[in-house]
């Protein structure tokens, strides 16, 4: 068997647990979608592009109908409950999917290979198109844009001028700095908490540990939009951090720790238990075991999580909209959105700013690429 028959009869049935989980995750993701609607269409025209999460945000903070917003949140939560239950049931049996080795493309016939590579390049191009568009726009002059020359060869290159203006005429530097502080502190906080929680959940048997783990898993699926009213209330009344970067730091740590704990727990559970027992027999304390045995061994996982959490937090738009409103505390995502309002029709500047905002996560990924991939495939290739 080969080709599609192989895919249809062998590969897909084997992947069923993974695909069903992926489907539930994407359903949840779709129910969560907010950023694109908010940035691109504001739900319009005539509400034709409004989604539940955006509608809720709009009703709560736009029309100040907080009770109505909360009611929508409850509905969303009910929908989500169904997904979570299905997910938990689905994820319980631990299907051991063996690593499969694809047939190397080099052995295919030349014609097939050409089709393959062409497809790869086309996909890559389509995927990168928005970034290419932004990159080209960011080096155009304003005359070009006014003349409608969006895709053609630029009549003049004003990259230096555009990028200098981004920094001189806007608080871009401040935004980038805020983003950097928020992201780094959140990453460190979430990783520290999740490593400890993961160690405890995987290595100690205590009353309610399974329930706690189930809560961590389920918590990942709660659409955070529905928490915006209580979170904003907490940030204003309980811990007075509203409109500071610490509001974002605290809530990002809180939201990321759930996912990270699940990841760390599974990773630490893979470590041979005898390593820990050997240390215990030698009279090494639990804290010392954590720092000297566990942490060095989960370094690849920490690196992978760092990259993921860095990207999540850096790209977050929703919470920066809900929790901060002054330029001094805005991260770069919300900052760009604010600039879009002050810099109407200055697409070259917006593009330049967007591109700058996209650089740090990419940089982090390339710096930690090796550890990242090692972390994701750990356990699969124990030799």
């Amino acid at each position: 068997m080969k080709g599609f028959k192989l895919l249809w009869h062998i590969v897909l049935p084997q992947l069923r647990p993974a695909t069903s989980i992926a489907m539930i995750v994407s359903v949840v993701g779709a129910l969560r979608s907010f950023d694109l609607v908010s940035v691109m269409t504001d739900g319009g025209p005539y509400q034709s592009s409004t989604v539940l999460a955006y509608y809720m945000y709009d009703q709560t903070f736009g029309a100040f109908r907080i009770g109505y917003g909360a009611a929508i949140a409850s509905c969303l939560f009910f929908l989500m409950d169904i997904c979570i239950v299905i997910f938990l049931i689905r994820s319980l049996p631990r299907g051991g999917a063996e690593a499969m080795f694809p047939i190397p493309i080099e052995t295919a016939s030349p014609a097939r290979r050409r089709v393959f590579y062409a497809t790869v390049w086309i996909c890559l191009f389509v995927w990168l198109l928005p970034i290419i568009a932004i990159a080209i726009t960011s080096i155009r002059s304003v005359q070009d844009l006014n003349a409608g020359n969006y895709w053609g060869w630029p009549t003049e290159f004003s990259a230096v001028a555009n990028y200098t203006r981004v920094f001189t005429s806007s608080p871009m530097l401040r935004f980038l700095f805020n983003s950097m502080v928020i992201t780094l502190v959140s990453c460190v906080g979430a990783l520290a908490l999740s490593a400890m929680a993961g160690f405890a959940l995987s290595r100690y048997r205590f009353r309610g540990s399974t329930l706690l783990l189930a809560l961590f898993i389920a918590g990942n699926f709660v659409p955070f939009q529905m928490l915006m009213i209580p979170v904003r209330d907490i940030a204003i009344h309980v811990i007075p951090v509203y409109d500071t970067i610490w509001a974002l730091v605290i809530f990002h740590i809180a939201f990321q720790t759930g996912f990270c704990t699940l990841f760390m727990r599974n990773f630490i559970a893979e470590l041979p238990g005898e390593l820990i027992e050997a240390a215990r027999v030698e009279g090494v304390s639990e804290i010392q075991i954590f720092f000297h045995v566990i942490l060095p061994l989960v370094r690849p996982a920490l690196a992978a999580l760092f990259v993921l959490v860095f990207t999540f937090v850096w790209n977050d738009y929703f919470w920066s909209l809900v929790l901060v409103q002054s330029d001094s505390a805005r991260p770069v995502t919300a900052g760009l959105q604010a600039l879009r309002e002050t810099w109407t029709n200055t697409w070259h500047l917006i593009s330049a700013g967007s591109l700058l905002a996209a650089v740090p996560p990419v940089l982090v990924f390339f710096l930690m690429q090796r550890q990242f991939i090692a972390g994701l495939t750990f356990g699969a290739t124990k030799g």
Partner: protein
Amino acid sequence: MTYVSLENIAKDFGTTRVIKGIDLSIEQGEFVVFVGPSGCGKSTLLRLIAGLEQMSEGRLVIDGRDMTAVDSANRGVAMVFQSYALYPHMTVADNITFGMRMNRVDKAIIAERLERAATMLHLQPYLDRKPAHLSGGQRQRVAIGRAIVRDPSVFLFDEPLSNLDAALRHEMRVEILKLHKSLGSTMIYVTHDQVEAMTMADKIVVLNGGHIEQVGSPLDLYLKPANRFVAEFLGSPKINCFETVVQAVDKGVAILPLPGGATVSLPLDSADISKGDAVTLAIRPEHFVVGETEPQKSKRRWSWWSTLVLKPC
């Protein structure tokens, strides 16, 4: 003198009792081997002694101190695991000294003990290597070195050689015995391999289904097994068993009919076997000897020695 004493030790996992009340005393300097089929509870018993599992019932005394509720770190035991349990991110030297460093032992003492263990186990050339760059036998030696530097009152080995190939296993067996001789420490060794048990032990403890079947020296167990389980468990090829019924007992000699129709007369050890009892006749394969041909029957005759008549268990 009893050095390690297990008094009615039991262990439950949930509702199942896996160790069913074990009494055992071990002398100082003895090499004791726990042997038994997989699932017999031998590793669990070792882990109970190490303090890695909590006893459900019973008492453990080591060197006169009640260790039942003492942390494994303070029991004065050192354990060598089947998987070696070496820390992959540390060098050999760091692996060996890890426990001492964490417990803030004086640097001079650490260096001296490391030196001593490395010399004893021929590990000096490898002290700066990571475990991944060592062979199986070398890894095992590092694991033993880590136990030696603790200067324990009891060494615990949990199937330490089962991951090694046959040749290396033989070599390590000799090395562990040499070590035992030079250190003179008490050692408890778990294995499922009866050859290891027979060749290494001062005292073998045969376990089955969570209880002790028999305790004794290797030859005692081999020649005088207490029951059919022990008789069949030790010895390869396996002992031959014939089910039969005692035809008559006369002055301590029993007449037993054999499946082929012949009978055999055997002296009995115990007096509680009498006429009409169903018994098992067990004969070690190497004890079959081709006898002389008896002219009147012109059939081959077998002679038996060191055979056993066992009550069914």
